[in-house]
C-alpha cells in the first residue's frame, strides 16, 4: 500500500519507471487521447496526475507526451518557439531522465513528437508527427461563462451565441476583434476549442493539417484533439475576415524581416536592442537556425 523507505532512497530518477507515470495512468491517458481523436474538439476529462514540475508549466502536455513516447521516439520541446528557453530545456531534461532510449532533437523535421508552448513550428508537420500543446485554459467559453457545468452543457448543444456576442462587442468598441491569442476555433463544424495561447498567426495551421494535434491541460484536467485533415475555422463574421499578425513596418509599409536569417515568412519576436531600437527575430529558433545553415552552405 505505501512505498517502503528503501524505495525512497537512491539518487534522482533511479527508482522511477519508464516515463515516470505508473502504467495505469498511462493507460488512462491513451484511452482519453483516443476518445479525443474520435470526437474532434471535444474536451475529454481525465484524472491528470501531478507531475514533478508545477501546474501551469506544461503538466498536461507532459502527461500526453509521456503517454505517447516509446523507446524509438525522437522528441523535441519548444517554448515560445525556442528549444533552449528555460521551461523547454527543463521539460526536455525531464524526458531524458525518465525516458531512457528516447532521443531528443531540436530539428522540427527529425522529431516524431513535439511538445510546444504558445507556438506551432513554421515548418509544416507531416502525417508521422504529433504536436502536443501545453494548455492553460482548455475551454474557450470561460471568456463568457465561469460555471463549468453550464459550459459543458453549452458545448454539447454547440451553443456559442455568447462567444459571438463577445466578438460583436469588440467590433462595436474597437472596430477590431481584440482576441490576440487563444483564438476560438471551430473544429469539424461543431465544438469550438481554445487552441492554447498560440498567436493568430498559427491558427490557420490547424486547418486540414497532415499531422495530429493533441492538447493537454494538466491543471484543468482535459485532453482534446484536432485530428489530421480536419476543418479548423477561427470564428469570425462574414464581413470581418480573420487576420493574422503581419509585422508590417508602418513607416515603410513593408514587412519586418528576421534580423538573423532575413526571413519574411515567420512569426517574429520583437524586442529592443542595446540601443533601444526595435528589432525583430524569428520566434521559431529551429527554423531560423536551419535557414542560417542553408545560407552558410550556399556561400
Amino acid at each position, binding site marked *: 500500500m505505501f512505498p517502503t523507505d528503501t524505495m525512497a532512497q537512491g539518487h534522482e530518477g533511479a527508482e522511477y519507471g519508464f516515463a515516470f507515470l505508473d502504467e495505469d495512468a498511462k493507460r488512462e491517458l491513451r484511452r482519453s487521447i483516443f476518445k479525443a481523436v474520435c470526437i474532434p474538439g471535444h474536451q475529454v476529462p481525465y484524472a491528470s496526475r501531478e507531475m514533478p514540475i508545477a501546474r501551469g508549466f506544461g503538466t498536461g502536455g507532459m502527461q500526453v507526451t509521456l503517454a505517447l513516447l516509446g523507446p524509438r521516439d525522437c522528441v523535441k520541446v519548444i517554448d515560445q518557439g525556442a528549444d533552449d528557453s528555460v521551461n523547454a530545456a527543463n521539460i526536455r531534461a525531464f524526458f531524458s531522465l525518465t525516458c531512457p532510449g528516447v532521443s531528443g532533437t531540436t530539428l522540427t523535421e527529425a522529431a516524431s513528437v513535439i511538445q510546444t508552448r504558445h507556438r506551432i513550428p513554421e515548418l509544416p508537420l507531416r502525417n508521422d508527427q504529433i504536436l502536443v500543446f501545453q494548455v492553460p485554459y482548455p475551454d474557450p467559453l470561460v471568456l463568457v461563462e465561469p460555471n463549468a457545468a453550464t459550459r459543458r452543457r453549452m458545448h454539447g448543444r454547440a451553443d456559442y451565441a455568447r462567444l459571438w456576442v463577445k466578438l460583436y462587442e469588440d467590433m462595436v468598441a474597437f472596430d477590431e476583434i481584440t482576441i490576440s491569442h487563444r483564438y476560438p476555433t471551430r473544429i469539424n463544424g461543431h465544438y469550438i476549442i481554445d487552441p492554447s495561447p*498560440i498567436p493568430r498567426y498559427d491558427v490557420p495551421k490547424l486547418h486540414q493539417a497532415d499531422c495530429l494535434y493533441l492538447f493537454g491541460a494538466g491543471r484543468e484536467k482535459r485532453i482534446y484533439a484536432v485530428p489530421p485533415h480536419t476543418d479548423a475555422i477561427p470564428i469570425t463574421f462574414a464581413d470581418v475576415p480573420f487576420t493574422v499578425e503581419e509585422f508590417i513596418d508602418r513607416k515603410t509599409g513593408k514587412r519586418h524581416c528576421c534580423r538573423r536569417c532575413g526571413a519574411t515568412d515567420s512569426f517574429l519576436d520583437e524586442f529592443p536592442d542595446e540601443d533601444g531600437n526595435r528589432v525583430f527575430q524569428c520566434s521559431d529558433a529551429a527554423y531560423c537556425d536551419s535557414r542560417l545553415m542553408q545560407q552558410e552552405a550556399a556561400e
Partner: protein
Amino acid sequence: MAYVAIRGGEEAIAGSARIMDALRTMGAGDPIELDQIERQMPLLHTKVMSEGGLYHPRLAALALKQSLGDSLEAAFFLRAYRSTKPRLGETAPHDTRGMRVTRRVSAAFKDIPGGQMLGATPDYLHRLFRFELMDEGAETFDEITRDWFGNRPEGTRPTTFPKVLDTLRDEGLLPPLAEDDTPPFDITRTPLIFPVPRSAQLATMARGETGGLLALAYSNMRGYGDVHPTVGELRVGYLPVTVPHPVTGKPVEIGEVQVTECEIVAMFEKTDEGAPVFTLGYGACFGHNEVKAIAMAVLDRAISVAAQNGRINNPSEDPEFVLLHVDGIESMGFCTHYKMPHYVTFQADMDRLRAARGKAEEPSHVSN
C-alpha cells in the same frame, strides 16, 4: 551563435539548482536531520502530508528539507511522488470512534461522555517569546521529556471515546446517519465534473491548502454566508488503518495515521418528515491541523446548504468556486507559471492593441 533573447536555458537551470543547494547548506551548523523535522516541527510536517495527500512521514520530512521549508513545495513533492505509484486497493470506511485520541474538545457541551481532553494545543498559551529556547541544549530536551513521562499517570484512562454527536442523534436533534455503501469518489483517478457527490467534495478539501480553505471559510463566518457553526466535537488522534488482506480479503491492520476530525453543528432546518433537526458539517485531514478541519467542516456545510436550497448566495457556497480553488499544488503552480516567458502572447497582444489604436486614429472611425 549570434545574440538571441534569453538563450542557454539549460545552463541557467543548472546554475539555479546549484544556488538553491548552496542556500540550503551554507552557513554554520550541521545538516538538519529528518527525525528532527518530524519530531520538532510535527505541525508543519503533518500539514505537508495532509496537503500532499500522502501519509509518508519520512518522505514528508525529506520534502521539507529539500524544499527549504516551503510547505507548498514540500506538499508538491509528495503529490508528484504519488503519480508514480499505482492504486493497489481500497480500504473499507473507517470509524473514527476507534481513534486513539490525544485531544478532544466540544464547544457544544460543558461535559461530554468520556470528558473533554485538552491535549496539546497552543490555543491557551500566551504568544510570548520564551527567549531561553534560543539556547536550548540537548540536556534540557531530555529533562523535559523525562519530566513529562515520569509524572504521567498510568494508562488508566481509556484512549477511545464515543462521539459527542451520538447523544444529539439519540435525542433526535440530529438526523440519523444513513448507511451508504456507494463507493467513494476518488479524486486522484477521476476529474471533478460538476455536480460532484459529497465524497468528492470532502476528499478535495481533505487535501486542500490550509490557507485557501481558511480564507473561504472565514468569508462565510464573517457574513458572506450564514453557517454559524458550533464545534460539536474536534478530535485529534491516531486512527488504525486496516486494508483487506490480499489473499483472504479479511481486514488487516497495517499501521495508524494521525488525523484531525471536526464535526460542526449548524442551525436547524425543516425536514420532509416534519420536526426540524440540526445540520452537520464534517472536516477531517491527515495530521494535527485544527484550523483546516474546522474550515473544511464549515465549507462542507455551506456547500450542502446551498445545494439543498438550490440557490448559491455566496462564493463559499459554490462547489465549483470552493473545490477548484483550494488545492495548494494547483494554485501555487499556476501562480508561479506567470514568471515564465510570454513573449509570443505579448507580441500578439501588441499587434491587437496597435491595430485597435490604428482604427481609433482613423478619422472615419466613429467612437462609441
